[in-house]
């Protein structure tokens, strides 16, 4: 197609919503939050420039900050791989053409459909509460306990991890679509060569799914870093007990919108952006060693 002058104008007209929105709601806010991160700003008076003070305070003087970093890393490192492992396992179980499979697929997917809602976060705080479903079940088996899983600092974060793993459904659907694309004759050929189920999994399924795994891993990691609603609801906005559920995003929210320390919170946001960006880059870099790309031919 030859470039015509008119196409430039029409192209910008069609793309205008995104371009305007990007400049107004993404680019400008990013630049100004970088600026705020070097200031003290409480919304009431104008921002005052303080250099690297916010960053220095964050890294050297704020135990709560480091605690929230630890809690968040723990949350991400535990929940993302578990979630993906479950998603892959169940996808392999469901990759069959038998009656009723659609019903199973829905049952496994539904939790991830509603999982981000306040209703489910409330439900979760009751399931793991002192008299909740879990303790009630344990009671049936003679294990009587009155400790709330939410209220016990040793288990509180794990209840959030469980909630995240419970929502493996959307990753499962992506894996299912990927599994359907693997030609059946690969497995048949491997079967003829005497490869067992385990070998076929590691030699065929895993390599051919690896681009999808990479994609899932990156997107899930980023969204895990931003987890807010369940932590807020389950801990009633406090991040307790003993700050064990004070995820990064929740701490940032409290600093910004409860204490109105906009500069400090902006600095936190930029550190998060850099960490998430670096992690994503590392994942992409390592992907050379474990992600298998088929030569696409004419596609």
């Amino acid at each position, binding site marked *: 197609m030859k*470039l015509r002058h008119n196409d*430039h104008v029409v*192209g910008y*007209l*069609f*793309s205008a*919503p*995104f371009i*305007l*929105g*990007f400049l107004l*709601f*993404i680019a*400008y*806010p*990013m630049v100004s*939050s970088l600026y705020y991160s070097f200031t003290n700003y409480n*919304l009431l008076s104008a921002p005052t420039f303080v250099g690297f003070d916010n960053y220095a305070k964050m890294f050297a003087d704020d135990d709560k900050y480091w605690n929230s970093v630890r809690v968040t890393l723990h949350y991400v490192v535990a929940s993302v791989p578990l979630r993906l492992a479950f998603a892959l396992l169940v996808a392999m*179980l469901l990759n069959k053409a038998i009656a*009723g499979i659609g019903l*199973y697929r*829905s*049952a*496994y*997917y*539904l*939790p*991830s*459909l*509603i999982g981000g*809602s*306040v*209703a489910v976060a*409330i*439900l979760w705080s*009751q399931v793991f509460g002192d*008299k909740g*479903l879990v303790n009630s079940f344990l*009671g049936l088996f003679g294990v009587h306990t009155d400790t709330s899983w939410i209220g016990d600092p040793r288990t509180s974060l794990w209840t959030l991890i469980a909630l995240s793993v419970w*929502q493996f*459904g*959307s990753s499962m*659907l*992506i894996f*299912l679509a990927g599994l359907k694309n693997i030609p059946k004759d690969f497995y048949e050929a491997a079967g003829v060569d005497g490869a067992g189920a385990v070998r076929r999994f590691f030699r065929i399924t895993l390599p051919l799914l690896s681009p999808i795994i990479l994609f*899932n891993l990156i*997107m899930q990691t*980023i969204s895990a*870093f*931003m987890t807010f*609603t369940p932590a807020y*609801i389950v801990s*009633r906005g406090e991040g307790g007990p003993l700050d064990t559920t004070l995820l990064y*995003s929740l701490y940032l929210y409290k600093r*910004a919108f409860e204490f109105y320390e*906009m500069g400090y919170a*902006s600095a936190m*946001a930029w550190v*998060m*952006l850099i960490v998430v960006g670096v992690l994503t880059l590392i994942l992409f870099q390592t992907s050379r060693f474990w992600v298998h790309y088929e030569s696409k031919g004419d596609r």
Partner: protein
Amino acid sequence: MTASAKLWRRISYHLLVGGLALVMFYPILWLFVSSLKPNDEIFTTAYSLIPSRLEWRNYATGWAGFAGNSFDTFFKNSFIIAILSTIGAVASSALVAYGFTRIRFFGRAFWFGCMMMTMMLPRDVTIIPQYIMFTNFGWLSSFKPIIVPQFFGIPFFIFLIMQFIRTVPADLDEAAKIDGCSKYGIFFRVILPLTVPALVTAAIFSFYWTWDDFYHPLLYLNKPELYPVSLALKLFLDGESLNNWGGMFAMSTLSLIPVFVVFFIFQKYIVEGIATSGLKG
């Protein structure tokens, strides 16, 4: 393999997969059953799925809401936010997706790159200046900060619709052009009708995300009469209303019903939408 061995395999498969599905689904079932249990029974017999009697009153006491604001208001607010946001998100994303796929213009690759970057950008980085900006606009305590940004294209949906437009043969565009269609004509008469499945998928997810959204209402809406359901549910956990468990479970159940209804009507679109674009549910 003998017939009986095959049968055993099939039974154990359904026991395993069905059993696991039941475990997955159990909390949701429990939520529903608890919404029908008398208040004093919810936690004394938490393991039981059979209430001693059906307490429909929970729905009435829950619906009554807090300090004069009933769930009439909250549901109305949620529907206003979700429907307007969805219209804005889908319409604007479709325009942009067409511009990015079918028109070659100066800087297209750059803007496409910006869009992909936005998709991965943590919300926390932009939220503070956005909040300050909307405060300066005088938009606090209104739906505007939640709804208006949706009219500027949502990267996930742009990407999804782009993927779909790419499957429409370019010959169709050419044919329409020969028939005298402008770029606008091609968009409205050729592309739009053919991308309906992608638009439906985008609409469904937009509805889900805005219906479930808690963060932005929490930030921008500070009057109970403006609360959507997601934010109103939080009030059950606050202070004096702390003991209306039945009402809390009842309203939580109701808040999920629009999501379930949309799911059962549009299941096909959802499954395909996630599989082709990696949208998260």
